[in-house]
């Protein structure tokens, strides 16, 4: 008895690993995805390094070193407080990652759950969910973010919530749309005919088969979330100073775009690379996950 159970477990595990392995195999053949993967690895490295940087060393000011350009001593130059930009940017990786991942996770949990429910069940439930989503979506995103940060106060987690909330309806629509395209397929109807419980159908049949657009959206919106966070910072609703969140660095130094261009260029480049990496990886994942590609 117990033996067969164990066997079943082992085979299940094995099967999962092989699926993941297959995806990784697909990914490794995709040059773009690998580039994204490498950039993200560097980002993780930056995050690990940042664990060894003390907050003091990125806030210490020096009036004599204001606005010095990139040099051997300060790789990325210094800002208006004479603070080393390189250290700040490295340290800032944690904020950017937290905002991107946090906000998307926040939005995805709510969005995908309700979106697939709406798409699968249809009828009244769909109407209610979609109207609720419409209400949320019809409030201008950035504005909703501003209001949320204003109400909750300026902090990292509040910024994550503000970005996540405005992303939720997008995921919801996307999840619903892809569920819609899948729900009348033969395999779903077959599963229904067999009498599988609805929840199981959603999570084992509908979601995985409608996953590719959701994956693309999620990974792409990791980047968008980072940009939305930066936009909120730009408008003065970001992480409070002196936290070196990249968007905030750009926002604080945007006035120096011409006199000290490095202050916007480096964090801007980091944001762009990070977003690019997430997008590349998302595209790669999409190709790897696409069931029709697999059929080929």
């Amino acid at each position, binding site marked *: 008895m117990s033996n067969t159970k164990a066997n079943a477990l082992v085979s299940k595990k094995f099967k999962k690993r092989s699926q993941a392995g297959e995806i990784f195999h697909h990914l490794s053949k995709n040059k773009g995805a690998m580039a994204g993967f490498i950039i993200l690895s560097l980002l993780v490295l930056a995050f690990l390094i940042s664990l060894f940087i003390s907050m003091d060393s990125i806030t210490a000011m020096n009036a004599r070193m204001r606005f010095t350009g990139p040099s051997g001593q300060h790789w990325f130059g210094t800002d208006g407080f004479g603070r080393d930009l390189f250290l700040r940017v490295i340290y800032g990786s944690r904020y950017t990652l937290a905002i991107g991942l946090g906000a998307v996770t926040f939005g995805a949990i709510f969005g995908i759950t309700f979106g697939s429910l709406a798409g699968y069940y249809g009828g009244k439930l769909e109407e209610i969910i979609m109207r609720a989503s419409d209400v949320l979506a019809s409030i201008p995103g950035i*504005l909703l973010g501003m209001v949320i940060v*204003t109400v909750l106060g300026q902090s990292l987690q509040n910024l994550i919530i503000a970005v996540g909330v405005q992303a939720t309806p997008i995921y919801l629509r996307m999840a619903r749309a892809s569920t819609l395209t899948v729900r009348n397929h033969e395999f779903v109807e077959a599963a229904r005919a067999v009498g599988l419980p609805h929840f199981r159908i959603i999570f084992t049949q509908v979601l995985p088969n409608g996953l590719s657009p959701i994956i693309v959206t999620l990974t792409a919106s990791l980047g968008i979330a980072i940009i939305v966070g930066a936009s909120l910072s730009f*408008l003065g609703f970001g992480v409070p100073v002196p936290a070196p969140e990249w968007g905030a660095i750009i926002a604080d130094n945007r006035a120096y775009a011409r006199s000290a261009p490095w202050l916007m260029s480096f964090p801007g480049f980091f944001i762009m690379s990070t977003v690019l990496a997430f997008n590349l990886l998302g595209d790669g994942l999409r190709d790897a996950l696409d069931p029709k590609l697999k059929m080929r």
Partner: protein
Amino acid sequence: MIRYILIRFLWLIPIIICVSLIVFSLMELAPGNAIDAMLSEDLTPEARQELIRRFNLDRPMIYRYGVYMFNLVQGDLGVSDVTGLSVWREFIVRLPNTLVLSFTALIIGAAIAIPLGIIAAMKAGSLVDNAVTVVSLVGVSIPVFWLGLLLILAFSLHFGWLPSGGYEHGIRSLLLPALCSSFALMANAARQTRSNMLEVFKADYLRTARAKGVPERVVIRKHALGNAWIPIITAIGSSLSVQLAGSVVVESVFAWPGIGRLAADAVTARDVTLTTGVVIMTSILYVLVQLIVDVLYAFVDPRVKAQYLSASKKRRRAA
């Protein structure tokens, strides 16, 4: 279909109620009120008390919301707490600016993105495809405010071709902000088009069509595009609603007097009436755009159309 559209219009009512409740109560919860935003050196404690009475701040929030809704039912969006100017007028004066900006951005974006996406999908894996992919990825990755400043530096200052902001130079004023806000849309739509076209290309019916010897151009136009439209329309539709909601950032950078900036200013001034009013109007616009998108949806996707038809037939039979 008409019945469906009517129902969607009726849905506006609960949406307006929900939106107004959410925005109104959030704004009320925010620290500080309109008086704090207007605080000047001349605001004596006595004057402050008088203002508190005038804004009913000495009463519970539900009273203020009730008054607001009472006026709203009569079609009155009220006057701004801060300026005393009519909310409707403030909105309607800026609406054309935002509409013009959004549609220009949309047209620029779609006109460039869809052909690019199709070409990229047709030549999947080629140099062209990779170039389109990279360009559109970079496009998504650039923060809008950074792009806006760069555009101004390049086109207004360096070349001196276009004004850096404002709206008094007609089409010339429009180009930079529209280009700036079309960028992300363009990149998104191109990606969406490409990935959907790719998906459709793999479909059996295309293979059949090709096998029958239908020319590739016709295959793409008739069969592939017909099926790839849906997500593209969804993407563009949602982009449009985002645009209409007012790109606060673009409007700020280019000093474009649109409804996004109006609302953002209202939030920072704790102008509850103006914020709620503008958001209600924006959400109505949003719902209308979504409705149009959904109707288009039905027209391009025969399956969805069939659903609507059968649903109305059923209803008729039941009635």
